[in-house]
């Protein structure tokens, strides 16, 4: 099965790139029998994540059907999802003092 990304569960809002992807590439992924295709809006390298649906600022970002953090800005389908637009909600000793 030729694919460019992996989606873990059907509830996930993102996929992990299994090859280096360039802006404009079509990333094909399988979820069971379903084929999902996303047009890349930016370069995303192997092992990094990209959105497979639009995510609003303040929403939880979902992988493994669980939250992996909160979006700090709006993210659209095909964009890189990582520390620049997602913040962890745990272990935040820094937040206690704000």
């Amino acid at each position: 099965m030729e694919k460019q990304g992996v989606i873990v569960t059907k509830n996930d809002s993102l996929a992990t790139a299994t090859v280096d992807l360039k802006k404009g590439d079509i990333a094909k992924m399988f979820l069971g029998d379903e084929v999902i295709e996303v047009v890349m809006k930016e370069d995303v390298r192997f092992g990094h994540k990209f959105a497979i649906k639009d995510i609003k600022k303040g929403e939880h970002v979902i992988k493994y059907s669980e939250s992996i953090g909160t979006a700090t800005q709006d993210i659209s389908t095909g964009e890189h999802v990582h520390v620049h637009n997602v913040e962890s909600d745990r272990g935040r000793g820094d937040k206690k003092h704000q």
Partner: protein
Amino acid sequence: MKFMGYRRNDGKVGIRNYVLILATSVCSNKLAEDISRAVEGSTHINNTFGCCQLGGDARLTLKTIINTGIHPNVGAVLVVGLGCEGAEPLEVYNEIKKTGKKVEMITIQGEGGTLKAFAKGVSISRKFAQELSLEKKVECDISELILGMECGGSDTTSGLASNPTCGVASDILVEMGGTSILSETTEFIGAEHVVARRGINEKVSQEILNLVRGCEERAIALGEDIRGGQPTPGNIEGGLTSIEEKSLGCIHKSGTAPFQGVLQYADIPAEKGLFIMDTPGQDIESITGMVAGGAQVVIFTTGRGTPTGNPLAPVIKLTGNFHTFKNMEDNIDFDVSEIVSGHKTIKEMGEKLFEEIVEVCNGKITKAEALKHKEFCIYKIAPTF
């Protein structure tokens, strides 16, 4: 299923047969290492503690040293102390002797300096090494195996491929009556509710949640942002965005079996099955704890690559990152990257990994053993005074 192992006087089974040169404190650490270098078939631990520690911290170091000394992969022990340290050499000697294991003790002060202690130590260890070389393996049941599970240098392939592969192997072992230990409490933060659901009863589930809450509170009490420490810069470079994401990937190592209970660091499980041990995310401290807890073999998943071994237990390293396997083929034993590319399933690689574990139990040496990696580090829970 059977494997060939060394039956010890306390009934436990080892898959290696070392003479352990056991330093009880940092002051005798160099001497212990020097003795070990001089004796074929011996091993040693790196002990940078063992004195001027207080309370729970002192007890933890002593427990880790003793439990490492009574480990079934060890056939005989030479306890090596300075003579005045907090982790008293005589106490360590006595606790090991109680289990029926061959043990002797020397101290630098007692022998009159390191040169004389070296000569005596090498002489004793040489005798032990020859005695152990006559020991024969016997057939043992796979249920006597304790498997330690670790992940380090994680990236996104860890959660997608290498950790679930580990989970399949763990499930197979537990199904056959064996024991498996999941570790690294920090790396449950964000996934603790998923883990707690698998406790065999409410008490165990609550213990798991308390364990993780305690860990997160310690981080928060420092007034620091846990990020940068966890996930590490390497994790982030590899695509992991948050501790939650890392943890959700990490917990896949434990497969689907129910959790029998929570172990404190370096505690030996009293029953069989799947356990959680409270260890930090620092790989070497974590592996040191699980091996002290009796794990005869360790599987270690890595995304970015790591060379880590252990003085007593073979550490089998695997990765789901094709680039990492090619880049660090000298150090990584097992490649499961075909799961990521879609050419192999998690189930088939998990079964292959289990076969590899059995081969290592039967004598196949890992790359870490071949390259003499003996990373060892006792978890410290308070400052020295």
